[in-house]
């Protein structure tokens, strides 16, 4: 199972706690994790990546294992610690605005 930590507003929207556990088929990549996340929680579609372009929304970032993965290719493998469930993938909202 892959662990994903969502920003507060998306936890509220999806009616989940801080962390969700996902069964991700195949290789664990950002795209595969987001596909699984949106499949289980369809209300999150469009909130993390654009509906059409599938690009990450500008004010969100992806972190894991103390690394910023936001600009990694979406089909690049996630760190082994994330794939094994030892470490979570963090989706963070930028600290901006009032």
């Amino acid at each position, binding site marked *: 199972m892959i662990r994903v930590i969502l*920003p*507060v*507003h*998306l936890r*509220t*929207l*999806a*009616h989940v706690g801080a962390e969700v556990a996902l*069964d991700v*088929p195949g290789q664990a990549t950002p795209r595969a994790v987001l596909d699984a996340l*949106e*499949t*289980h*929680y*369809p*209300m999150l*579609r*469009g*909130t*993390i990546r*654009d*509906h*059409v372009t599938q690009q990450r*929304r500008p*004010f*969100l970032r992806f972190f894991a294992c103390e690394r910023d993965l936001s600009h990694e290719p979406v089909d690049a493998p996630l760190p082994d610690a994330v794939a094994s469930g030892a470490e979570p993938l963090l989706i963070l*909202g*930028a600290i901006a*605005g009032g």
Partner: protein
Amino acid sequence: MSGIRVLVGTRKGAFVLTADGKRKQWDVSGPHFAGWEIYHMKGSPADPDRLYASQTSGWFGQVIQRSCDGGKTWETPGGGVTIEPGQMPKGESNKFVYDATPATGKPLTTHQWYDGTQHPWEFKRVWHLEPSLTDPDTVYAGVEDAALFRTSDGGTTWQEVAGLRGHGTGPKWQPGAGGMCLHTILLDPSDPKRLFIAISAAGAFRTDDAGKTWRPINRGLHSQYIPDPNAEVGHCVHRIALHRSRPKVLFMQKHWDVMRSEDAGESWHEVSGNLPTDFGFVIDVHAHEPDTIYVVPIKSDSEHYPPEGKLRVYRSRTGGDEWEALTKGLPQRDCYVNVLRDAMAVDSLDSCGVYFGTTGGQVYMSADAGDSWSPIVRDLPAVLSVEVQTLR
């Protein structure tokens, strides 16, 4: 027993204010969707417990929320958790994609940008939701960048009414200071195929065939801030309103000027009359008197607050031109709030109630058609929209 439900959208969540028909004691529920901008909430005339809300965020985009119990509980239509692994999502309630398909849509053209160049359409948010007069599952959505969308399955899926964006004048539309938004949708109660919409900054438009074809209805508007002050499109219309008993008579609060049309928008004439300033955002019509209208004058386009620090609603009982200031119960010194375009509404009790919200977080109401006012709440986040349901 009658009752009133006031739906308030704010910068930081939604609030539902309820009272019985006396309108004295109010219950405040919220914030719903705390921390999100709620641009608009509105109930279905065909089923008052069916509510829709536009929940939006610069971080997370657009979400549509629906309630089937008058705002007690909410859901994202079609967005329930799927249990079976690999099962595809049931719906796409927050998906607004311009229709550029050859069969039903229009090419994704460009509009005018702030610097005069052309810019492609980019969806940003839903400004206004207008439920059908007869079907709780059918709702129109006015969006930024300006276009009209429609759902017929209770908000699960949305399709663009592409004839509006693509009818030909789109390259001349341009964003106002708040963005290029379709903010007003009026459904003609006497003709289900007729809709009026308004866009900042493009103007007013009308369809007579349920959205297939559209045309501008801006003759008579005069806007000195655009290259051709009498242009067919390009006017910054802030709001239009009608009375359901007389839907060919339209009232408009333009960027500057309060306007009136007798012929469903074919032509307009100014009715600003003795207003202290004819800049403003809201305009609305008394529930029982088609010639009684309300505006809240704002000092100017560069100073978005009431003149002299006095919050005054102006009422005309003559359909414009002759206006009286309504001040009883409203702050008459040191008041520098704004009243945004979707933030005024009326109820339909025998003594018509009038309601408006401010960017200072107050929601004021009058149970006597504006003669006197009192705050329902004083300290909400900045109010973006106010809608009222009269429950019988």
